[in-house]
C-alpha cells in the first residue's frame, strides 16, 4: 500500500488543500500588512509602534514572557542560588537532592558560616522529635510536633484545592498550618473523615443519591479519582458556594462546618484527623465577624474548637496595609467563608480594629486568651529597637500587674511575607529577619520576657541551613510560605493576584475554576509532606555536623561572621 492509497481512505487528507493554503498565506500577509498600516499611520497611543510598526510588538510579547520564563534563562537573583530552588523541587518529589561540584553562588562571598564540631555526631545521636510548647500558662497549651510550620496563606489567595493539599500535607507531616487572615475554612479540614467522628451535629452534610454514586464509581473507573470527585461534587452540591464543601472519600459525602449551629454542638475535645491549625486574625476579622464588621465572640469560640492557637496580625513582611483580594478572587465560596459580598474587591483596613494603642491591643489579646483558653500571639515586623521596646514595655507592665500577656510573637522579615504587595512597600518597609531577631531577643531578655514569649520567625526560608541560621539568631519556631508554595507546585511565574488578567498557571494561587479545579491535591499533599520531612532530615544532619543534639543548644556563637567578603 503506498501513501496515496493510504490517505485516500481519509477524505480530509486526500482532498486538495492547495488553494486553501494559498488563501491562508494571503490572509496572513494581509493581516500583517494592515497591522503595519495601523501601527504606523492610524494609532497614536504607542510611540514605539509608530517608529517600529509590527516588529515593536515583539517587545510586549517578550515582556509578557519575562516573568514566567525568567527562571529558565536568567540568573537566580531572588534567592542565594538556583540550587536552593532545585533542592525544594527535588525533595518535594522525594528525589535525592545531592549536588556535584559547587553551588553557583561563590562560596567565599557568604557573610556567615556555621561552625562545625571537631568531632561530629552521628545523626542518630541528634534529637528525633522536634517540639515547641506555646502558651504554657494557658489552660490548653499547644505542643507542636515540629519546629517548622506553614506560614500564613489565606484560603482565597490560595485556591481551595491548594489549601486542601496543604492541609492534608500538614496533617500527614504533623506540622502546624496557619490559616492566614482569610479565616478557618472547610478546606483546612480536608483530611477529616466522618468515619472517625462521633458527633457530626455541627456539620452540614450533603450526600448523593444512588444515581450520583453510581456515576462517581463509573467515572472513577474510566478516568481517575480527581475527575470523578469533581463531577460528583457538581452533581451533589448544587449551589453557588459548592466549593466550600469538602469531600469524604470513604462515605462519598460532602460536608462543611455549619457556623449557625450552637456552640454546644461543636467538638469540645481536639479533633483527630485534622492538622494543627493556627488561626490568624487580620484587620478584616474574616471568619470571626458580624455582618457589620465587628468582632463575633461566639463565632471565634467556635473557630477555636478547631484551631490550636490564635495569631493576631498587625503587619506582614512586605506590607503593613490590609490584604487586598481582587473581585476575580472573591468567589461565592470566599464570600461564604468570610461573611462578605461576593465578586467585589475586598480591601481590608490598614489598622487592626482593636489595636489603637498598646493597652487596647493587649487587652484584646487577653480577651482572646480567656475566650479560647488557648495560646494567643501577634505578628509584627520590626522597624527599630526603640519601636519594639514600646511593645516590650507594655508587656512588662502587664506582667507586673499580674495580667496575662501574649504567648508568642511572630516576627516577619522585611524581605518576606510579600504575597501581592505594592512595590514601594516591598522595597523599603521592614527590617530583615536576622537584624530583627537580634533586636527582639536582646529586648525581650532586657525586659525579662524571653521566657514568656516564644518567637516564630519567617523570611524566605527555603532550605535546612536557612532554618538553622534563624534558630541560631534566637527563633524558637520557623514559618515557611514560599518553600511550601514551591513544594505544592508553584513555578514562580509571579502571576498570583489575578491582576492584569493573568492567573496562576498551576492553579495554586488563583480562583480561576478552569486552572484550579484540575490541581492534583493528593500528589501535591504528598510533596508538601515530603518537603517538610526532608527539611527536618536536613536539619538533623547539619546538627550532627555542628555537634548539637538539641535545637535549644543553638546560639549566635555557632555562626561565624566573615569579614573578608568580596
Amino acid at each position, binding site marked *: 500500500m503506498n501513501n496515496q492509497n493510504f490517505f485516500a481512505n481519509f477524505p480530509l487528507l486526500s482532498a486538495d488543500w492547495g488553494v486553501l493554503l494559498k488563501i491562508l498565506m494571503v490572509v496572513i500577509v494581509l493581516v500583517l500588512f494592515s497591522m503595519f498600516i495601523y501601527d504606523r499611520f492610524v494609532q497614536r497611543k504607542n510611540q514605539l509602534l509608530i517608529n517600529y510598526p509590527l516588529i515593536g510588538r515583539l517587545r510586549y510579547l517578550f515582556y509578557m514572557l519575562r516573568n514566567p520564563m525568567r527562571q529558565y534563562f536568567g540568573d537566580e537573583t531572588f534567592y542565594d542560588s538556583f540550587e536552593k530552588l532545585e533542592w525544594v523541587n527535588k525533595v518535594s518529589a522525594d528525589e535525592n537532592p545531592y549536588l556535584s561540584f559547587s553551588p553557583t553562588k561563590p562560596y567565599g562571598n557568604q557573610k556567615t558560616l556555621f561552625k562545625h564540631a571537631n568531632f561530629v555526631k552521628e545523626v542518630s545521636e541528634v534529637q528525633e522529635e522536634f517540639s515547641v510548647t506555646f502558651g504554657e500558662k494557658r489552660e490548653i497549651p499547644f505542643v507542636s510536633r515540629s519546629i517548622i510550620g506553614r506560614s500564613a496563606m489565606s484560603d482565597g489567595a490560595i485556591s481551595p484545592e491548594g489549601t486542601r493539599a496543604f492541609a492534608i500535607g500538614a496533617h500527614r507531616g504533623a506540622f502546624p498550618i496557619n490559616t492566614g487572615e482569610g479565616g478557618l475554612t472547610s478546606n483546612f479540614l480536608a483530611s477529616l473523615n466522618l468515619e472517625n467522628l462521633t458527633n457530626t451535629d455541627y456539620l452540614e452534610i450533603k450526600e448523593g*443519591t*444512588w*444515581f*450520583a454514586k453510581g*456515576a462517581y464509581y463509573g467515572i472513577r473507573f474510566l478516568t481517575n479519582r480527581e475527575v470523578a470527585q469533581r463531577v460528583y461534587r*457538581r452533581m451533589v452540591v448544587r449551589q453557588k458556594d459548592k466549593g466550600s464543601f469538602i469531600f469524604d472519600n470513604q462515605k462519598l459525602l460532602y460536608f462543611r462546618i455549619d457556623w449557625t449551629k450552637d456552640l454546644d454542638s461543636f467538638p469540645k475535645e481536639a479533633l483527630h484527623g485534622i492538622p494543627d491549625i493556627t488561626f490568624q486574625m487580620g484587620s478584616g476579622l474574616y471568619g470571626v465577624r458580624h455582618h457589620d464588621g465587628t468582632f463575633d465572640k461566639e463565632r471565634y469560640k467556635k473557630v477555636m474548637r478547631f484551631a490550636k492557637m490564635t495569631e493576631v496580625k498587625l503587619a506582614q513582611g512586605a506590607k503593613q496595609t490590609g490584604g487586598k483580594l481582587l473581585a476575580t478572587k472573591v468567589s461565592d465560596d470566599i464570600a461564604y467563608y468570610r461573611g462578605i459580598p461576593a465578586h467585589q474587591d475586598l480591601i481590608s483596613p490598614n489598622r487592626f480594629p482593636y489595636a489603637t494603642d498598646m493597652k487596647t491591643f493587649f487587652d484584646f489579646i487577653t480577651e482572646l486568651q480567656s475566650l479560647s483558653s488557648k495560646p494567643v500571639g501577634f505578628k509584627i515586623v520590626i522597624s527599630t529597637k526603640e519601636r519594639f521596646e514600646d511593645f516590650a514595655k507594655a508587656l512588662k507592665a502587664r506582667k507586673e500587674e499580674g495580667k496575662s500577656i501574649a504567648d508568642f510573637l511572630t516576627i516577619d522579615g522585611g524581605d518576606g511575607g510579600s504575597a501581592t504587595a505594592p512595590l514601594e512597600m516591598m522595597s523599603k518597609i521592614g527590617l530583615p529577619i536576622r537584624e530583627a531577631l537580634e533586636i527582639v531577643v536582646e529586648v525581650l531578655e532586657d525586659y525579662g520576657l524571653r521566657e514568656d514569649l516564644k518567637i516564630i520567625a519567617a523570611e524566605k526560608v527555603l532550605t535546612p541551613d536557612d532554618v538553622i541560621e534563624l534558630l541560631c539568631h534566637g527563633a524558637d519556631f520557623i514559618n515557611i510560605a514560599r518553600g511550601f508554595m514551591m513544594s505544592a507546585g508553584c513555578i514562580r511565574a509571579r502571576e498570583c493576584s489575578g491582576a492584569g488578567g493573568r492567573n496562576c498557571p498551576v492553579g495554586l494561587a488563583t480562583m480561576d475554576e478552569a486552572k484550579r479545579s484540575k490541581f492534583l491535591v493528593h500528589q501535591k499533599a504528598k510533596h508538601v509532606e515530603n518537603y517538610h520531612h526532608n527539611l527536618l532530615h536536613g536539619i538533623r544532619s547539619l546538627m550532627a555536623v555542628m555537634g548539637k543534639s538539641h535545637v535549644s543548644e543553638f546560639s549566635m556563637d555557632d555562626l561565624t561572621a566573615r569579614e573578608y567578603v568580596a
Partner: protein
Amino acid sequence: MIKNTLGEVSVLFAYPRHLFMLAARLLLAYGFVKPALLKLNDMNATAQWFASLSIPLPTFTAYLVTGIETIAIVLLVLGLFTRPISILLSFVMMGAILFVHESHGFSVSDNGIEIPLYYMLFLFIFASFGAGKISLDNLLFKDDNK
C-alpha cells in the same frame, strides 16, 4: 429524593452539551457543502434554476444565496459569528421551503419540507443558544449568554 436525583442527572447530562453543539454545527456545515458546491460550480445554471422557480431577481439572489451558504459553512465550522450567520442562513432555508419544497408536502421521501425545516430549527437553536463553548465566539468574544 426525586428532586435530588433529577438535579444530579441534569448536572451529569449537561457536561457534554458543548460537544453536542459542536457536533451539530459540524453536521449542519457538512450538509450545506453539497448544495453550495453545486450552485458555485455553475452560477449561470443556478440563476436559471432560480428564475424557473419564479424567485425574484434570480441572478442577484443566486449570488446572495450561494455566498451566504459558502461563508456559513466556514463560519459554522469555526463557530465564528454564529448567531448572525445562523439567522441569515435560516432566511435561505425559509426561501428553500417556500420556493422549492413546500409543494411536495412534508415527508423527506417526497422531497418535502422535512429536512429544510429541521435545518431551520437547528439554525434557530444556534441563533438563540450561541455556538457553545468550543467555538471562536467563546474564545474571542466571551459570548456569556449561553
